[in-house]
């Protein structure tokens, strides 16, 4: 019954609840049909690539998280753009790999590449009401407690650095605190911190590496937003910093992360590493051969 403790289950519930609330109650400009298309496309792409890699069974969980995150952040002028972003998101996981690991967070990569390539795709960061935001923030924090935090350190470091940068900037400018407080009340920031940068598959393996990485992303994000005056600074920063993760791992090595998945889902030829503890700290999960 280990898979019950897979942090992804909680994440899927939280994201799905938020998406439902966004579609039904808020003017998220997400149509149920569009959301279904994005989810179906991410799952189908995942299925196709897993088959091509010869994986037995089908694990939809990671793809579902990517798809739900996409639904919450992605806006597209027409459905082909949405579908293309979904395909690219999942394909990046299988096609861009270094030493057996994918390099980019799939959702982050899909969004940034499509935004750079086309003006028909965009992210709407400011469309969350404060009630939704508050509930979502609580749910995200609850997730850390419930799951004993798969890579909560990177989320904490990112949020800590980002908040420090925003408040530091406000202090330097002499602005009231209400301005940085307003800036951190962003649904996109929460999705980013709890569901993107925290992705254990694409963060550095060691804790010092992760803290350094998160601080780098925050710094670059702030430079993009407040130096270059471009929106979505953190999204761009993450996609730009991701290629450094393999280098960071070489410099500060650590154990690779593996989801607490069932053995049947391991790719052929890979031995599954049994979990050492009934409720382990995820960073140690894969300390195996």
């Amino acid at each position, binding site marked *: 019954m280990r898979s019950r403790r897979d942090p992804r289950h909680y994440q899927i519930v939280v994201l799905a609840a938020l998406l439902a609330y966004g579609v039904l109650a808020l*003017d998220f*400009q997400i149509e149920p049909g569009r959301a279904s298309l994005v989810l179906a496309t991410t799952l189908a792409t995942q299925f196709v690539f897993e088959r091509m890699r010869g994986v037995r069974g089908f694990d939809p969980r990671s793809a579902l998280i990517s798809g739900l995150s996409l639904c919450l952040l992605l*806006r*597209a*002028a027409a459905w082909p*753009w949405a579908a293309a972003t979904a395909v690219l998101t999942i394909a990046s996981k299988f096609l861009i790999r270094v030493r057996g690991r994918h390099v980019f967070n799939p959702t982050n990569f899909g969004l940034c590449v499509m935004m750079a390539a*086309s*003006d*028909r*795709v*965009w992210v*709407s*960061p*400011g*469309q*969350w*009401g*404060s009630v939704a935001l508050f509930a979502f923030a609580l749910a995200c924090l609850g997730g850390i407690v419930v799951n004993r935090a798969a890579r909560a350190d990177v989320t904490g470091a990112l949020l800590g650095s980002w908040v420090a940068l925003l408040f530091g900037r406000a202090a*330097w*400018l*002499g*602005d*009231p605190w*209400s*301005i940085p*407080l*307003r*800036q951190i009340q962003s649904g996109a920031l929460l999705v980013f911190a709890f569901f993107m940068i925290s992705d254990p598959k694409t963060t550095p393996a060691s804790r010092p590496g992760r803290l350094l990485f998160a601080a780098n992303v925050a710094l670059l994000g702030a430079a993009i937003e407040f130096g*270059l*005056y*471009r*929106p979505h600074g953190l999204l761009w920063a993450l996609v730009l910093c991701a290629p450094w993760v393999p280098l960071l791992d070489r410099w500060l090595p650590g154990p690779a992360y593996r989801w607490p998945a069932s053995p049947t889902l391991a790719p052929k030829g890979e031995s599954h590493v049994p979990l050492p503890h009934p409720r382990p700290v995820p960073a140690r999960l894969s300390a195996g051969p």
Partner: protein
Amino acid sequence: MSRFRILVLFLLGCLLAPEPAQAFCGFYVARADARLFNRASRVVLVRDGDRTVLTMANDYRGDPAEFAVVIPVPTRIQREQIHVADPALVDHLDAYSAPRLVEYFDSDPCARRMTLEGRADASKQSAAPEEARARSLGVTIEARYTVGEYDILILSAAESRGLLRWLRETGYRIPDGAEPIVASYLKQGMRFFVARVNLDQQARLGTSFLRPLQVAYESPKFMLPIRLGTVNADGPQDLLIYALTRTGRVETTNYRTVRLPSDAEVPLFVKDEFASFYRDLFAEQVRRESMRAVFLEYAWDMAWCDPCAADPLSPGELRELGVFWLGGDASRGSAPNVFLTRLHVRYDAEHFPDDLRFHETGDRANFQGRYVLRHPWTGPTRCPEAEAYRRQLEERGERQARTLASLTGWNLAEIRTRLALGGGADPEPWWRRLWQE
């Protein structure tokens, strides 16, 4: 790297006020002038890439000698970057995008009132001592231009205290609380652009009103600073933004952009009071969003409209407003590639602490604030379906009453009373069928 914020004049409405303290945000309201009660600013924002053309319209009706305004700008502005536009352009754009009753249109319910103030005698001072004093306070007058009826000064300053002191000494009243905001903007490298009316030029040009000022600049910042306008403001202010872009709809990135309820069916009597209907609808929606949202009133491809509250702007008019991607052949036929977004925000310092930041989306879906009147059939009805139709009318009347109450916050019982008195569905007169069978 002086690519910073643009601060528009409505902000500075509160920053600059004449020494004789009669005209300054807080005081206007105290006059209880109905026109000023709903004060609103209008800004046309033409944007593509990093290029921006800002048109700031005002309805200042006071003594032109008392008009003065400061517009913070991101870069040094040359004479050619400043222009004076025909106010009819902004009025046309406003009429084209105004919320509408189907097939009828009303002028925008929100009166636009710029709270711009100035001083009488500043323009009479000679330039040389002004400049010397400015220098001694760390304020540099970078350039002086006369554009149309305006005298323009471009200012930069080492620190806010010097700039504010110079402005005070030059005759402007600076409200308490403005200094930290000016300091913040200055730290971000902004220059200040001061415009006041040149009475000789105005007399020569024969213009009796002040025309909109336009500024063209290149900066990655896509935002409107509203912070200064909230200093000492007595109550919330309205701002209408007409964004003209090439790709699609514009929305705010740091506040929610919410579509106003639209396509709602309302009772017929609304036709006679559309202005108050819309004013109350807007106020009600602001209340529901806890005054934390920017409202979308219109998003449409400039090539057409349906129904048209006013004709689309001609390519020539768009070019005058600064739509620079329309080529020199703009006046010739082909439909211009221009998308209009009309945003309406009611703001104050508490709910909108930060400036408005925007981004352009790829969304070209049309949206308009549109309210529907349905006149019932009033001719003779002698078919069996008539009874069902009458029942439908009653249900429809009730539905419309509830919609109206929900949209505007009006009292439902009063709406029902008005409908019963004949303000609604034009019921068939009781005597019509009396002798017909």
